[in-house]
């Protein structure tokens, strides 16, 4: 069983990697790019939000930090395209560093209080970037795009984002089976008991938080290069933070597959609706989707099908 699953995953990934060679429309490349991006965001969020049950509502902050750090480095040092893409890795490390500094005091706070402090944190980061001219200010940052045909450049970024998604999902797969993951699950079910059992709760929460900030930071860097112009309103948007949480919980938090399913479904539905319906009507249907799924699958899609399948 395990072998077949692995083979199926490998084939699926190979097909995804081969997709740009079929010369598709740029639109489909862009669409897949955002699907990959949201899978990365939701899966990384899941490290702290799903496994440990610490619902961070400020994850767009890490995405935005990565985006602005990459854009700033690229425009200041006039980096070449390859170096700009690589610059998103240290930008992700910066996001992880911020997670370390912020996580240390904030992860002591539990439940909804943690969620609110992360909302505040995201606002503080956004407003700081907006108010300080050097960091981007109210005008944002422009990047120079690659000097090659659009389709080729989009294909390159598509492949890079796909690679990042594979790495993120690999780490998520490992986490689900590791001591770290087991410790986080213990924290989620009862933090006091976990502590009594000798699990270093404070330490592993920080570790999970850092990991969950690192990948969104890199994704933010790639996204900045993809857009070639970034503004604080776009990358720090609180709706991104909320969407990340919803995608992961919608699919099923604390599972490997849940955030993937949630991110894919919500991105596809959102895109499909906005193509075929008037904007407001599309949003209303989108909102109704949340209601219907929550009523019929209150513990996430994964949980619902597991119960149906395995009892």
């Amino acid at each position: 069983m395990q072998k077949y699953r692995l083979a199926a995953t490998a084939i699926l990934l190979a097909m995804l990697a081969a997709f740009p060679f079929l010369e598709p429309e740029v639109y489909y490349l862009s669409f897949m790019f955002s699907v990959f991006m949201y899978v990365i965001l939701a899966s990384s969020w899941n490290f702290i939000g799903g496994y440990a049950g610490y619902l961070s509502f400020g994850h767009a902050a890490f995405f935005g930090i990565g985006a602005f750090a990459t854009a700033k480095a690229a425009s200041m040092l006039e980096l070449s395209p390859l170096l700009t893409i690589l610059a998103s890795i240290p930008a992700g490390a910066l996001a992880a560093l911020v997670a370390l500094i912020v996580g240390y005091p904030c992860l002591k706070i539990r439940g909804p209080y943690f969620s609110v402090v992360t909302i505040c944190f995201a606002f503080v980061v956004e407003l700081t970037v907006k108010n300080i001219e050097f960091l981007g200010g109210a005008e944002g940052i422009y990047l120079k795009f690659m000097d090659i045909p659009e389709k080729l450049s989009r294909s390159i970024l598509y492949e890079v984002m796909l690679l990042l998604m594979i790495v993120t999902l690999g780490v998520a797969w490992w986490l689900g089976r590791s001591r770290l993951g087991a410790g986080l699950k213990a924290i989620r079910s009862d933090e006091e008991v976990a502590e009594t059992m000798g699990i270093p709760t404070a330490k592993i929460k920080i570790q999970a938080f850092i990991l969950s900030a690192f990948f969104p930071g890199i994704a933010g860097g790639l996204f900045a290069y993809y857009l070639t112009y970034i503004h604080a309103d776009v990358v720090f948007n609180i709706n991104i933070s909320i969407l990340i949480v919803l995608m992961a919980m919608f699919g099923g938090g604390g599972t490997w597959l849940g955030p993937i399913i949630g991110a894919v479904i919500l991105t596809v539905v959102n895109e499909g609706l906005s193509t075929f319906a008037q904007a407001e009507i599309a949003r209303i249907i989108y909102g109704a989707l949340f209601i219907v799924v929550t009523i019929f699958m209150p513990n996430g899609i994964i949980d619902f099908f597991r119960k149906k399948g395995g009892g």
Partner: protein
Amino acid sequence: MDAVLIIQSLISGIMMGMVYALLSVGFSLTWGVMHVIHISHAAFGLLGAYLAYSLLEYFGMDPVVSAAVSVPLLFIVACGVYQLLIKPITKAKEVIVASMILTFGLAIILENVMVLIWKADPRVLTPTYASGALIVGPFYFQYPHLVGFGLSIVGITAIYLFLKKTYTGMAVRAAWQQPEAAQLYGVNLYRISMITFALAVSTAGAGGISLALLNSFEPHSHNLWLIYLFLVVIVGGVGNVIGTAIAGLLIGVITGLAMAFLPYQWVNLVTFGLLMIFLIFRPHGLFKQGV
């Protein structure tokens, strides 16, 4: 520094704060009593504001009078919302998470329905006395602000008295403190939850009208309102009515003073920065929790 300016901004801060308090008190109750984080709470408040806007525009109805119309109306609507949407998810493993996702969807629906009906342009409530102001010595109070402030005080007092003095109110408090025991004493938890939810939504409507008297509003304003709701409720302690009122005032005064003395774009940074620090040191609010 200018003493007049300080006092003037203190007073506007207090007015704003009282309005935040009325808008937040119901959010605090649903969270405390039902463990439901009602994301569309502020959207219902905005609906109250839009109803008041239309009633004023087409029938010349004063916002205070229209509050008397929309508050009961929202109560009934909320009873329906509870029965149809909220009650089914009270069996979920994590009610807080399920309720957040569900009511987030509801907020999106409400927001876009409001865009369809009232368009996305910013609106202001302009009753006949909109341009008038009360001038006391060097201080200056616009009438709509005073009316909004007054409406908030009445709303907060009413909900406080309801919880302390009426049988149903006491049942709500009992359900929050000891759900099992309350049930043994014959309290129907579903009925109490429905009443709490409906009451919360109607106070949101009244709070929305008050806020609309102080500020302009548009269909997506509820997102910003929601953030203030969270802040007020957390600082005041979940489920605590008096705490919510004091926290509302505190946050109103902080923003009021920040607005007077800081460049506009730094105001929110200071507010959220202070609140973040506050949360780190006092994560469970300033006051003991409890209805």
